[in-house]
């Protein structure tokens, strides 16, 4: 992990603890923050950036990250596309993600917004991305994919880690995930892959 990000994360953890003493008592945020930058998340999001970078083949455009959490994916995307002509919007329904995202990644020119991933106009984006598909109801995910511009990319990740209560949309394997995504695309799947993360696999589909 980048030492600067680690340092900001630690400062934020201190803030959450202090806040729990005098204001909003939500110290679970500490665990949630730590989870959001753990090794597996870093690895799976970097995998997305590496594969999508090869396919996207442009310096400009605008990416929308649905269910962007505290912004790690947006930060890694910005590292790969440092050019200002590539706009990055990270949306999450949890308002604290916007607040913490700014604090963690304020130097990365990311537009953090609090909103449902299907509530805004997605036709302005050249790519819509979500690595949180295992947390998202199929009908919401379908709406998300169908809301994109016809020529826009869609990049999605899910997994086969069924055990968690919050994992309500897992898939048994890469093929099952790709087969589910395919009917909602305007063109085709350009990439699908599997990343083994020890106890479970993460699947990725990139298409148009």
């Amino acid at each position, binding site marked *: 992990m980048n030492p600067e990000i680690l340092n900001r994360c630690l400062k934020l953890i201190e803030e959450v603890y202090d806040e729990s003493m005098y204001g909003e008592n939500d110290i679970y945020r500490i665990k949630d923050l730590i989870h959001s930058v753990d090794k597996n998340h870093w690895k799976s999001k970097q995998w997305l950036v590496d594969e999508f970078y090869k396919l996207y083949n442009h310096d400009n455009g605008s990416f929308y990250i649905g269910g962007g959490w505290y912004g790690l994916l947006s930060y890694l995307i910005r590292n790969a596309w440092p050019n200002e002509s590539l706009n990055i919007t990270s949306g999450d329904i949890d308002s604290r993600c916007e607040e913490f995202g700014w604090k963690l990644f304020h130097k990365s020119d990311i537009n953090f917004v609090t909103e449902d991933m299907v509530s805004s106009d997605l036709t302005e984006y050249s790519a819509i991305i979500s690595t949180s598909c295992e947390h998202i109801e199929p009908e919401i995910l379908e709406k998300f994919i169908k809301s994109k511009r016809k020529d826009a990319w869609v990049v999605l990740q899910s997994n086969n880690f069924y055990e968690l*209560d919050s994992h*309500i949309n897992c898939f048994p394997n890469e093929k099952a995930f790709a087969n589910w995504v395919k009917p909602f695309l305007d063109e085709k799947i350009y990439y699908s892959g599997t990343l083994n993360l020890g106890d479970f696999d993460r699947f990725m589909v990139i298409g148009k």
Partner: protein
Amino acid sequence: MNVIFVKWGTKYSSDDVNALYNNLIEYNSEYSYHCYTDDPTNLNENINIIDIPSYPILKKWWNKLRMFSSEFPVRGKCIFFDIDTVIKNDPFKVLDHIDFNKLTILDCPWKSDDVYNRATNYDVRIASGVITWTAGNHTEMWESFMANKDYYLRKYKGIDRYIAHEGYSYNTFPHTYIQSYKYQKEIDYEPAIMTYEEVDFESRNIK
């Protein structure tokens, strides 16, 4: 009075629901019995089926929270029982002393260890094995949950912790209403129900 069961997945069967229903109608067969379920196959025909909708997808006990949705198709006074509840004595006698304007939930006096009070633990001294309320009240519990569902699913292990730590107020049943199979081997009162929290229901001959 509405008597409600929630059956999701395969941990409990329709036979388990029917067994509880048969126990309960010994004490009152006039009440309306409902089962909120994703699979009504083989449920007793006298139990009204309320289908679990396809949206939102909730696992396990989280489905119990939807009883507090304004769209839940039940009106009036309600009592909910977990399926792994065993009826020992009349469980409805207590209802004369219940304030149905409030949420009433089981107290767990056996949870006496200090660990339950630790802020980091998000544990509780209550249990939602039996709940009473009036339908249409407490809808804010469902609405707030839905506004940030994924975070709450990560934060809390179940609805008891969600209710207690999100600051919703509740009354509790008298201690003598309940006996814990796991924690209260010997008691000096006649409980209405026995609960089996964290005990493998299928391994017990309790039907």
